[in-house]
């Protein structure tokens, strides 16, 4: 398998990691803002 096709797998893992870390952080902060507004 050549190195460019290997890059797809590495990229997929890093994109998923960023999505979880930043996406979940953003979701929690959004939920906190929502709760603040409702209160």
């Amino acid at each position, binding site marked *: 398998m050549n190195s460019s096709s290997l890059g797809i*797998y590495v990229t997929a893992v890093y994109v998923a990691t960023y999505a979880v870390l930043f996406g979940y952080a953003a979701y929690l902060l959004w939920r906190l803002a929502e709760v603040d507004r409702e209160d």
Partner: protein
Amino acid sequence: MNHTEKTSGLDPAARAVLALALAIFAVGQYLAFKAPPDVQQGYLIRILYVHVGAAWVAYLAFFVAMVYAVLYLWKQEAAYDRISAASAEIGLLFMLLTLFGGMMWARPTWGVFWTWEPRLTTSAILTAFYVGYFLLRHAIEDPEFRAKAAAAAAILGVVNIPINYMSVYWWRSIHQTATFDVINRRTHMDGSMVAAMLVNLLAVTLFYLAFLRIKGALAARAGAREEWDE
């Protein structure tokens, strides 16, 4: 008194931990991309720097869920149940990330995304267990009974962790042994690779702590609202 007055917004501790996590993660990512390629796997080794961290946080989160489950059964305070559930949720999220990372690593190295070898099988069982944990929580309406059943499940769930960790030693298969052999206290990695992995490990741990703090605050607010409504 307005019950949310003192707890509104992101508290300073969560803000500080989240900011620190972001800063350390940035350094970790820089180190991961600066680290040399592996002799056998080339740059595919970069998956390791985030894959191990995700697995570690999943273990940690499930362990913390167990600790708070024990505290709930001991003290009978709903707050402990809420933190236990919050930690289990984060653990499940990171466990799914671990499975995805593992599959992306397996395809180019083993030729398949998934195979029922011991580490992967025990990882699937661990994940399925915590999916079951949340199904259980949603299936029970009575808050007290739900908290007790969930606490029992959270305590039982951690049994899977040592089995999952040790599976690569007990049933030698195609999955590599631990990157950090905590039993024999050794690693086979180059120093720059170790640094990249440890910094990323620290960063995701801090992310976990920040997430738990925010999730805990959200759960506490939900609990306070339920009491307010009654």
